């Protein structure tokens, strides 16, 4: 790691002010991605702003059918929360499937989506449940948040404060985990929400995306059979040592059918 200065801001306003005063500073959440990145010297910020001391970024509330999760809430806390299990059990399952217990105790919702790793789990929930990302500046709809490989709609220095998930009528998340890291080779969230059916995929492409053809078919008939002939273009799929593009395209169909079957 290159040397840097370490600061623990006390509030969102304090963190954002320090960040805008220094182009070369970076927010630190649980460090589960950032610290390995610094070790490999893939990034060399001169200053880390540790969000760990900001209590307003932590916590889970359920009010008027909307579940709100603070950016610094750990995956373990989401997985164990009775409010999450009661309102969106699929989200508790998703959080509990991330990495391993030690990673779940440190990794955060905000850090996960800010990073937009193509194989991260949370993006499937943010897009698939029609969530809204609240930053220190504005609200961004889940559909507009992920822009590409490790790319989001966040502006430089923009801080994620919380994410709100409207409670769906039913939802299920199925993933094919990488057997070593547990990252999603492919993960699919299927949900029936107040605004219609959503099918969101992570792991397969550059970032999370929806499959409108599957959504339309499921709106007519909510069954695994209804989507059996719908495929995604192989040319849009990631191709790496973990899985070929063809295999990922195949897995999208398999995971979607499993998710539908779980709640049909």
């Amino acid at each position, binding site marked *: *790691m*290159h*040397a*840097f*200065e*370490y600061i*623990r801001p006390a509030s969102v306003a304090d963190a954002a002010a320090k960040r805008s005063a220094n182009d070369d500073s970076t927010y*630190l959440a649980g*460090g*589960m991605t950032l*610290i*390995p990145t*610094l*070790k490999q010297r893939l990034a060399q910020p001169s200053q*880390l702003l*540790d969000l*760990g001391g900001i209590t307003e970024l932590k916590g889970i509330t359920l009010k008027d059918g909307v579940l709100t999760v603070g950016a610094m809430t750990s995956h*373990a806390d989401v997985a164990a929360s009775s409010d999450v299990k009661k309102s969106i059990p699929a989200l508790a399952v998703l959080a509990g499937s991330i*990495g*391993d*217990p*030690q*990673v779940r*105790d*440190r990794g955060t919702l905000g850090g996960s989506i800010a990073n937009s790793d193509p194989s991260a789990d949370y993006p499937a929930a943010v897009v698939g449940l029609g969530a809204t990302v609240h930053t220190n500046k504005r609200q961004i709809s889940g559909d507009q948040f992920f822009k590409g490989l490790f790319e989001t709609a966040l502006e430089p220095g923009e801080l994620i404060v919380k994410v709100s998930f409207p409670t769906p009528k039913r939802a299920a998340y199925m993933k094919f985990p990488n057997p*070593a*890291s*547990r990252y999603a080779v492919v993960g699919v969230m299927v949900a029936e929400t107040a605004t219609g059916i959503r099918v969101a995929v992570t792991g397969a492409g550059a970032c999370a995306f929806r499959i409108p053809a599957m959504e339309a078919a499921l709106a007519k008939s909510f069954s695994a059979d209804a989507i059996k002939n719908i495929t995604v273009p192989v040319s849009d799929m990631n191709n790496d040592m973990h899985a070929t593009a063809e295999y990922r395209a195949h897995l999208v169909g398999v995971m979607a059918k499993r998710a539908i079957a779980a709640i049909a």
Partner: protein
Amino acid sequence: MTKVSVTVNGAARSGEVEPRTLLVEFLRVGLGLTGTHVGCDTSQCGACTVHLNGKPVKSCTMLALQADGQQVTTIEGVAKGDVLHPMQAAFKECHGLQCGFCTPGMVMSALGIVERHKADQLSEAVVRHELEGNLCRCTGYQGIVNAVLMGAKALGVKVV
């Protein structure tokens, strides 16, 4: 250099560190607590697992300064003097180690499993799932899983 103060195994400890100093380096080099191991240095193997405020974390993927003002428990804080903790005794009894390199991390993770399940029950499948963050190159895991179940039972957890 920056001052860091951490409660380690119940005692207030402090030292001067660079901001980039990892928690595991502070424990091993700064405090001489070499029971916590570094296996991979890439967040994969869990040999560096310690408890932060009672929960298992990988101390190779945390800065010492992130632990400032908090409670850390390492493997050195588990036994009572010369008397092994029931989980350590179970590892010995079940042949839950061969070279022993992964063992400190395994024991700290095992204690995390006990903590999470003390109010419900524990099965072999759950133990295997929750040991996903700890790698062992020697044992083939069977002895470790047996040890976690035996240790959990000794600590009053219902094992099914």
